[in-house]
């Protein structure tokens, strides 16, 4: 009995190890790939820094008079929000999975389908490697900008809040991953609008409603309620507010429920759509 159990554990462990080795290799090669385009990566980081500076100076101008309060935000709060965006962006929005739409449209997906591995896990691993790399850079940028601008920043010390923040980040990463994959499935049916849909949804809609440009709660109340029912604010706005300690108790629990519900809904729809897509996949390009 015990021996049987031991064998079972052994088998599970070796299985897990094999799995780990597989995806660790993908992580490594993905990391190398990012470095193959050093200049492009650096430009992407420069873009991020500019974006932060732009948002920073915009809000600094609004709050130029000390004591100004807009939409319930004072200078310190809004600056903390802007710096929060920097880190959360690197964690959530650093993803490679938009390349999937090109794989589908141009038939490169075939290469992956032929291999004994899970395509979702493959891209998730690549996303994680991209996040790791971007986080390192974002941390350095954060530090440098922090020294230059000396903003009034709020450091959260409450352990429970930090745990909740971590949870919101994990949910945000999953939601973003599933959203990207869903949009990337469009080319199964319409190969020519792969980038168009990414531009519209990933760049315009997600940027605007995730809270990456402004906190959602500066909007009119009715509008806010509608947005909070969509998955978008759970990408940036919600995690930052949780970090800042602005969402606690019942509001936190409620928000987490919505985020978890969206994670589930998106996961199921992705599986459904993906299976449908694979059936009509034409594996073009020879």
């Amino acid at each position: 009995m015990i021996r049987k159990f031991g064998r079972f554990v052994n088998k599970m462990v070796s299985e897990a190890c094999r799995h780990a080795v597989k995806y660790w290799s993908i992580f490594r090669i993905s990391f190398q790939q990012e470095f193959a385009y050093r200049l492009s990566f650096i430009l992407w980081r420069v873009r991020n820094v500019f974006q932060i500076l732009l948002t920073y100076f915009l809000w600094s101008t609004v709050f130029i008079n000390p004591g100004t309060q807009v939409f319930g935000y004072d200078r310190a709060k809004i600056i903390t929000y802007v710096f929060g965006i920097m880190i959360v962006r690197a964690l959530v929005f650093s993803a490679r999975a938009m390349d999937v739409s090109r794989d589908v449209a141009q038939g490169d997906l075939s290469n992956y389908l032929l291999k004994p591995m899970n395509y979702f896990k493959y891209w998730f691993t690549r996303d994680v490697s991209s996040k790791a790399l971007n986080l390192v850079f974002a941390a350095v940028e954060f530090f440098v900008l922090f020294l230059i601008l000396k903003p009034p920043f709020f450091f959260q010390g409450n352990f429970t809040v930090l745990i909740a923040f971590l949870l919101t980040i994990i949910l945000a990463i999953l939601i973003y991953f599933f959203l990207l994959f869903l949009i990337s499935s469009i080319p199964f049916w319409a190969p020519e609008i792969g980038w168009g849909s990414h531009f519209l949804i990933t760049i315009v809609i997600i940027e605007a409603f995730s809270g990456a440009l402004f906190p959602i709660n500066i909007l009119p109340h009715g509008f806010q309620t509608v947005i909070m029912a969509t998955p978008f604010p759970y990408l940036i706005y919600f995690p930052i507010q949780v970090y800042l300690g602005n969402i606690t108790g019942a509001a936190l629990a409620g928000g987490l429920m919505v985020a978890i519900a969206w994670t589930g809904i998106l996961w199921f729809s992705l599986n459904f759509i993906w299976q449908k897509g694979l059936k009509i996949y034409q594996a073009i390009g020879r």
Partner: protein
Amino acid sequence: MDKAIIVDGLAKNFEVTEKEPGLTGAFKSLFSPKKKEIHALKGISFTIQQGELVGFIGPNGAGKTTTLKTLSGLLYPTSGFVEVLEYDPWERKPEFLKQISLVMGQKNQLWWDLPAIETFELNKAIYEIPTHVYEENLKELVTLLEIEKLLETPVRKLSLGQRMRMELTAALLHKPKVLFLDEPTIGLDLIAQQKMRDFIYDYNRKYGATILLTSHNMDDLVNLARRVIVINQGAILFDGALEDLVTKYAKEKIIKATLSKEDGIAEIEKIGKVIKLVFPQVILSVPRAACAIAASELLQNFPVDDLTIEEIPIEDVIRKAFKSGLNK
């Protein structure tokens, strides 16, 4: 068990949107897309034994690549039965995928910006190849394909021929039992083509691997495949030995003769259809059945130095067959 591949009544339809040329056409197709169904495969059937090397021939768009893609699990069959190594390819079970490989001459799996060895290492992990097996296989492939010095070069800097050999290495590291090759010699120069053919032949012999290859290149088929499947417009026209294809569809034979004198040379056209007549050489085409008589007539009535009887070149047979439709 000995059957590696079973295909029965396989059909595959594609839906394509048609677009008229130009900007107006683009707008029109945006609002009222014209859908058209293409029957890429119209119920084909064949079986392939383990260890067989079979060539797929047919013009562009005949359905060769579609068949390979369905057999390797990329395409979902519209109808019909497909089984490869006793698996349903569409399920793409890891145990199945570990035993097959599909190499497409115009699609690469190598990581473009990194040296090929990185892709090999990645495949080692993905296919879960034990280290000693991997090292052994890699060494063997690298030596056979002469790519030792190129392993550290980024793939984008390799020539097409070098890259194809890398692709093949990446596809064979896990020693697939069934190998699908789609145009393996496309774009390669003559020497590289020959090398590739030698390699495929050896691989088949050495490991008893089942190989199915498509090609436009008749040399590939003449040199490699004993059995050919001729496919046109989604239907199989011929399935059998290469020689049978020739005897069945080449109704004529070629007589080549070298003459010693030019006298009465015009009379020669009474014996058979003259293809070429430039003294001292004459080439005639005669019906298969009348071949022996024609040859003896030629020997008796003309000053012949040398005479050979040949089959029509396979390319001509196939070219002619596709022009007229084989079954007519």
